[in-house]
C-alpha cells in the first residue's frame, strides 16, 4: 500500500512542516524527489487516511483549557451505540470512545472527554450531557486532570528491514 519513499516522507514530516514559502519543495530536496511528487504522495497518504489531518495541535493549557475532564460511564452493552450516538452530538464533547471494562474496580466502558476553561463550566456541561442522554441512573466517574506531564504525537521511523531491502535492490 505504501512504499519506501512514502515511509521516508512520513518520517521527515513528523518533525513538522518548514515555515518557508514552499515547504513541500524543501522536503523534495531532502528526499531527492520533485515538489510535485511530494504533493501527489502526501495527497494520497491523506486520502488513504494514514495522515488523519495536517495542521496545528494546540497546547491546551496555554489556550486556557485547563479543566480537562475524562468522564467514564458503565453503560449496558446493548445501550452503548445509542447513547454514544447522542453524546457525540454535543458540541462540547471532544472525544467519545468505547473501551474494555477493567474489572470490579473499574467497570466503565464509555469514555467522554470535555476540555474546558473552568471546572464549573465543564461540570455544567456534564450535567447537561447526563440529562439529555438519559444517563442519570448510569454509574459514572469524573476524572479531572491535575497536571499534563507530556503532550506530543507518536514517533514513526523508517523500518530498518525496509531500508535494507532498498539498498540490496
Amino acid at each position, binding site marked *: 500500500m505504501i512504499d519506501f519513499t512514502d515511509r521516508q516522507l512520513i518520517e521527515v514530516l513528523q518533525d513538522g512542516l518548514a515555515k518557508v514559502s514552499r515547504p513541500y519543495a524543501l522536503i523534495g530536496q531532502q528526499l531527492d524527489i520533485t515538489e510535485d511528487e511530494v504533493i501527489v504522495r502526501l495527497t494520497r497518504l491523506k486520502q488513504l487516511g494514514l*495522515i488523519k489531518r495536517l495542521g496545528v*495541535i494546540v497546547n491546551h493549557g496555554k489556550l486556557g483549557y485547563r479543566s480537562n475532564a475524562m468522564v467514564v460511564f458503565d453503560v449496558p452493552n446493548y445501550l452503548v451505540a445509542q447513547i454514544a450516538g447522542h453524546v*457525540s452530538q454535543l458540541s462540547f464533547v471532544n472525544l467519545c*470512545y468505547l473501551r474494555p471494562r477493567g474489572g470490579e474496580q473499574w467497570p466503565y466502558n464509555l469514555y467522554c472527554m470535555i476540555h474546558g476553561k473552568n471546572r464549573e463550566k465543564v461540570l455544567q456541561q456534564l450535567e447537561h450531557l447526563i440529562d439529555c442522554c438519559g444517563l442519570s441512573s448510569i454509574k459514572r466517574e469524573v*476524572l479531572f486532570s491535575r497536571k499534563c506531564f507530556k503532550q506530543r504525537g507518536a514517533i*514513526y521511523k523508517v523500518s530498518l528491514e525496509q531500508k535494507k531491502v532498498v539498498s540490496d535492490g
Partner: protein
Amino acid sequence: MDEIDRKIINHLQDGFPICELPYQVVATELGLTEAVLIERLKRLLETDILSRFGPMYHAEKMGGELTLAAVKAPQQQFQQIAEIINAMPEIAHNYARNHQLNMWFVIATDKAERLSDVIQEIEQKTALTVYNMPKIKEYFVGLKLEA
C-alpha cells in the same frame, strides 16, 4: 496573542493545504500576507501556544498501535513514576488525574507487537500494574479547541 493569532490557530486546526504555496493560500483566506502568517506561526510555535504543526498520523493504519493506560501511583513516588513513564519515547500523553487510578497515559508504538513489550517494561520499571484500556470503538473525535 491577539485576534489575528486566534484566527490563525482556529483556521489551522481545520487543516493545511497540500499545494505549491500553502502558506500563501491560507494567508489569502485569512486576509494576511504570507510573510505575516509565517512569522506569526513561528512565534506561536516558539512560545509553545502551538505544540505541533504538521501531520497527525493514523497509528493503526501506519501499522502501529495506540492505547490508553493507567496506573495507581503511590503519592510518595508519584513524581518519580511520572519521570520513568515520560522518559519512554512511546508515551505520547501523560496526565495526572484525581482518582485512585491517578496517572493516565497514551502509549503509541510504531509496531503493533511492540505495545505489550512497552506495557511490560513500565510494569517492571515501576513495579505497578498497568491498566490497559485499548479503544474498542471510536464514536467521535473532534479535538478542535477555539482559541
